[in-house]
């Protein structure tokens, strides 16, 4: 991972700051995105975009840079998602953690795979996550919730991931690359 010359460079204050900033970048991006998606843009089904965005971030970073999103941080992001989106507290924390677990378990196969494969896998994971959220929320509120938001989330997942992945791959190679600090 870390090359020889990088190790030999002295760990100055600026370099430490640089490392910290790079390390914190993915998490900051996730939280900032969640907050920004709450702005009243007036997009249809804008609220369904938020969990998809969170899932896409968690999926991507657990796949290519697991150190970027520590497990407690993912749980906190899930709680933030629940608090912002009026879902019962903790549902998304559990679901995001499950997603992270699943991705880390499947990492050896998914990480070297082609983009299309990882895209398809994400759509599958997102649909599973949205479906589980639908089921859990329906059970906790003891009522049958409409199913179409799950479909919407699947569509959003399919549409959002390529664009987001393009951005995140860039970030992965530059702003979030701790080894380049």
């Amino acid at each position, binding site marked *: 991972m870390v090359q020889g010359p990088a190790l030999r460079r002295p760990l100055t204050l600026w370099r430490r700051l640089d490392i910290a900033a790079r390390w914190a970048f993915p998490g900051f991006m996730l939280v900032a995105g969640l907050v920004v998606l709450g702005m009243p843009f*007036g997009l249809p089904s804008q609220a369904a975009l938020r969990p998809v965005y969170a899932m896409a971030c968690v999926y991507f970073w657990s796949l290519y840079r697991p150190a970027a999103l520590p497990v407690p941080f993912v749980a906190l992001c899930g709680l933030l998602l629940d*608090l912002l989106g009026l879902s019962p507290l903790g549902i998304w924390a559990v679901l995001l953690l499950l997603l992270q677990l699943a991705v880390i378990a499947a990492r050896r196969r998914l990480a070297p795979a082609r983009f299309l494969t990882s895209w398809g896998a994400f759509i599958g994971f997102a649909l599973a996550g949205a479906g589980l959220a639908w089921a859990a929320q329906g059970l906790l509120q003891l009522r049958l919730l409409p199913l179409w938001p799950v479909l919407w989330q699947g569509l959003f997942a399919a549409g959002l991931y390529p664009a987001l992945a393009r951005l995140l791959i860039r970030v992965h190679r530059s702003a979030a690359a701790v080894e380049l600090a």
Partner: protein
Amino acid sequence: MASLGAVLIGRADQNFSDHLRAGLDDLLAPLYQAVSGPLQAAEHGTGAIGHLFALSQENAQLREQNAELLQWQEVAMALQAQNNALKAQLSYVPQPTPTFSTGEVVADLGGVYARSVLVAVPPVADGQSLVGAVAMDGRGVAGRVVEAGGRSARVLLITDINSRIPVALGAEGAPALMAGTNGPDPALLYWAPGHPPAEGAMVLTSSQGGAFPPGLPVGVVHYDAQNNPVVLPLANLDALRVLRLFSYPQNLPELTPIPHTKPEAKTAAKTAAAAGTHHRKR
């Protein structure tokens, strides 16, 4: 494990998550307000530029509209005079005037299965809570406040799936229940059998159950493609900008909205029926 614990805590104590949420909303409201200002300015800006090219047509249109509205004003004044005379004959007891605060809608914080907006409100006096206040935009009822912090209030919209509002239909005030479906138009339930709501009938709030004051405009009855009666809300729920939150006087027992205890109070509907009863036992 900890997040599973959070689910349990959220189940056991609804107030806990409400407090957390209100705190977070308070924190985020000024932030959103700072950002949504320029956003709206940009919207108006594009509007102004677009209007420059159509100024004369618009002027003519506005003059026409003004003349029409002046006629309506005369009608309204005549009706008001008549109304006052009739009220005087009936020795009518006027309804208490509600206090209101006006707030800007700063964020659209609905969830996947919830429709709500965050309103930045001026700081409220201690001991007073905005919870239960009726939120209206310029035209009709938009929703009710379910959580309120120091400078923000979360309004559950009438389209939310947990929203149940007793309404009165048409001139005779036939009772029905308006239930949100998470779609754009809430459904009408429990109207009197044999008397289906008429297409185009006005929908007003009803004081049944004591959660709402009577007579606030909500919308218009319409039959959808499946021939089910729905309500087309008057309020522009997709693009709410400013909301007025009316707090009705607390000394009226039937109008006192007490969250978590009444089945109509939408905060209670948030909890499952079972959890709600447990909560009340505490």
